[in-house]
């Protein structure tokens, strides 16, 4: 197997309260150094709650946000400048909110033509043919092409978003909560379409979601983020069957499931990102926290085989 994507200590911090001159008032570490590897043809599921750095990570991977440190390699090529045009031919992004990711004042044809023109240099008949092909691939009727975004339902708009992402024939798609804005009956339509496209085009996916059940259904491997850091990673079946990090377990227990009584609720909130605790960021909510947890940040290490966790006291299987 070959590597589709690899990051080395990829990190990003934001300056808060920037001043005209002089250093900023504070620095927020949105993504702490993360190293991941994704094999060709694989789906890596990335889970975590809002504010844990999922979207910042995703936006670095497609070149929309420049990393503060670390490197990104796609199919062996080092992409060291945040240049969406350079990334765009290799890796593309599908947005969470399908409607707001389409310019309300452009027709669907104009929206789809942009990447074909600017990234692939297509013109005239070639361009039209490719647009028709893309539209067929996401099963939409070609008479939709001359309409405007507001005329579409969420599910249809997300198909358009997927068609746009595929236009430049990228090798990798970063799917940032692609179905969270959709109703369940439509959600599955889009997920199945994504699975078909992946098989047909030999794509690699990074699938970001807060919904564990959805991530489990589509992923080969899982990465769990908490407070900007990777806290657990491994094969999907292992991570869900035997979570090793207490946070992963809490996530799994919190998802409301038919027939399971209310529970798994734990008090506590995320730490203040401007004033992070010195040790494990989860210590304030963790039932297993000890003194070392509050003092030392645990490093990500192999627990068993290819399952990794960043915890001083990993859970027993």
């Amino acid at each position: 197997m070959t590597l589709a994507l690899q990051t080395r200590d990829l990190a990003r911090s934001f300056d808060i309260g920037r001043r005209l001159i002089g250093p900023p008032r504070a620095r927020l570490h949105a993504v702490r150094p993360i190293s991941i590897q994704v094999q060709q043809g694989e789906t890596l599921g990335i889970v975590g709650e809002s504010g844990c750095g999922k979207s910042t990570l995703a936006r670095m991977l497609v070149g929309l946000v420049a990393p503060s440190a670390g490197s990104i390699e796609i199919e062996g090529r080092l992409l060291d400048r945040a240049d969406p045009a350079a990334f765009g031919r290799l890796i593309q992004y599908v947005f969470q909110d399908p409607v707001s990711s389409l310019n309300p004042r452009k027709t669907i044809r104009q929206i789809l033509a942009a990447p074909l023109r600017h990234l692939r240099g297509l013109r005239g008949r070639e361009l039209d043919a490719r647009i028709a092909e893309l539209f067929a691939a996401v099963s939409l009727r070609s008479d939709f092409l001359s309409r405007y975004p507001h005329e579409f339902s969420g599910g249809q708009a997300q198909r358009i978003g997927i068609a746009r992402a595929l236009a430049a024939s990228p090798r990798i798609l970063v799917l940032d909560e692609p179905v969270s804005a959709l109703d369940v009956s439509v959600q599955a339509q889009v997920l199945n379409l994504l699975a078909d496209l992946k098989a047909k085009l030999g794509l690699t996916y990074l699938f970001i979601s807060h919904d564990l059940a959805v991530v489990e259904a589509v992923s080969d491997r899982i990465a769990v983020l908490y407070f900007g850091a990777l806290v657990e990673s491994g094969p999907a079946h292992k991570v869900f069957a035997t979570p090793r990090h207490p946070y992963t377990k809490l996530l799994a227990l919190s998802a409301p499931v038919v027939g399971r009584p209310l529970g798994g609720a734990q008090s506590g909130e995320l730490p203040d990102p401007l004033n992070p605790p010195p040790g494990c960021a989860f210590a304030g909510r963790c039932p297993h926290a000890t003194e070392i947890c509050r003092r030392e940040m645990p490093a990500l290490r192999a627990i068993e085989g290819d399952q990794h966790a960043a915890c001083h006291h990993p859970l027993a299987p």
Partner: protein
Amino acid sequence: MRLFLQLLFRNRLAGFGAVVLGVIVVLAVLTPILPLHPPNETNTANRFLRPLSEGHWLGTDHLGRDLMSRLMWGTRLSLAVGFAAALFAGLAGAAIGVLAGYFGGRIDNVTMRGIDMLMAFPYILLALAIVAVLGPGLMNALIAVAVVNIPFFARNIRGVTAGIVHREFVDAARLSGMGNARILWSEVLPNVVPVIVIAMSTTIGWMILETAGLSFLGLGSQPPQADLGSMLGEARSALITAPHTSIVPGAMILLIVMSVNLLGDGVRDALDPRLRSGAPSRPEATTRVERATAPEATESGLLRLDRLETQFRIGKRVYRAVNGVSLNLSPGECVGLIGESGSGKSVTALSVMGLVASPPGVITGGAVRLDGQDLIGAPYEMLRALRGRRVAYIFQDPLSTLHPLYRIGDQLAEAITAHQPVGRAAARARAVRLLEDVRIPNPAARARAFPHELSGGMRQRVGIAMALANDPDIIIADEPTTALDVTVQAQVLALLDELRRSRGLAILFITHDFGVVSQLCDRVAVMYGGRVVEEGPTTDLLAAPAHPYTRRLIACVPELGGGRRRLAAIPGLPPAVDDLPPGCAFAPRCERAQDACRAGEIALAGKVRKVRCLFPETTP
């Protein structure tokens, strides 16, 4: 464009402004070919002729010049200068604003500080200072007026641009390989232009006035050239003896400024996206009711909805958002209302207390009885007294009920004093206790926080505290946990469940999540296309759904522990409620559908388990 003109002329005042301004502009344009005296031809023998004199309709001024002619030429000049100043200020301000908003960071910081400094000067002083430096003259007055107006445009446009730049479609354009110039031109600008037009149309009147002001002071147009301001200025000395020389240009200024402003307001309203989507300019206090008769009460209960019908009328279309919904809520009971977006859950909930916006919403039938008393069509005062006191709402976005500029403790205290005769201190103490009840750590300190200082989960707790403020009997919660993370959702659900048990609250819980329903609700009603299609005790219904829609919707929900797999979907889309098919609304997507399903109304049948289907999956 057609829509724009329609909206514009629906507003009578704007139409009037447009007509008046149109006439003035046409006359001003035609001035050179109209049979007028030369404007600067003096004739001291005929000084101060009154209006309607022979050959001089509006009379003459202190040098015997024809006022009519001077008025027309002056109007022409004033209009031209005003428009030019507006155009210049608008374009320069927009350019600054778009660039600052788009690039942000240092560029933004530096330019906006400069703009702030300019804005700190009193307006007219700044204009005077500019003219003092440049010297008097019409061109310089134009420049001065334009310059003092640039900050206004720059500020406005910068805000709008910054908002657009953070929209996802701009990121999408970047990923499509577009450069900054192209994105500015084809993605940002088309979305900013309406704002520029609005800003110009609402300020142009003032700019004409300001130019006239400078000319009046002798700093604008120089004699003998006439503009409206200089005409007024020259007439000043003869204000008492020959008032018409002042009144004529004064009236024209009034007409121009008034018509421009009326038209400008109309343009602003017509371009306002909220009005375009049919939202009301002035919403009514409660939902409009057009109901023939109230149906008989079928069952008794704390809150009882009987065949409630709510519609939205937009143009010629009628959206039947709620189409005969009956529901019963007993004390201490939690009833779930579940369905996909657009199925009518929220409108049902808002109809209960007449909170649906009218226009376009209208309650066209049914009854909502609280302790047997019908609330549909009840006077506003009564509904207001009941809102919060007996029936309280919790919404998905707690910010919609919290004021951003007041501390949460004060807002809670105000909610309490609105319904109860308690003092300020007592209300504050209760507010803190409420925050404690909803498990907000360190409630006394948090009471002094502003809404934006809290996390999403904390804010929703405050929303719940707000709802609990007056000890209501019923809480209607519309997707209160949809925007929250799962771990926070679990906390909020546990809190609601405990509050209901400890206080005997009845809860109508709206959600699209079967997991949440199963954990919280005693009974559940499933909505599709504005109707309840199935209802029953939660455990029974979830274990053996009878309606094909319910069964297939449940099958779509992925559950943790299933491993990697293909998920079930329901092909097709939910029906559009302005075009419901006759018979079963689910028929186009239903595998069991037969001709009979499409023929006519299908009743919600059954006693405890109810189902609206001719060929149900199970016989309940």
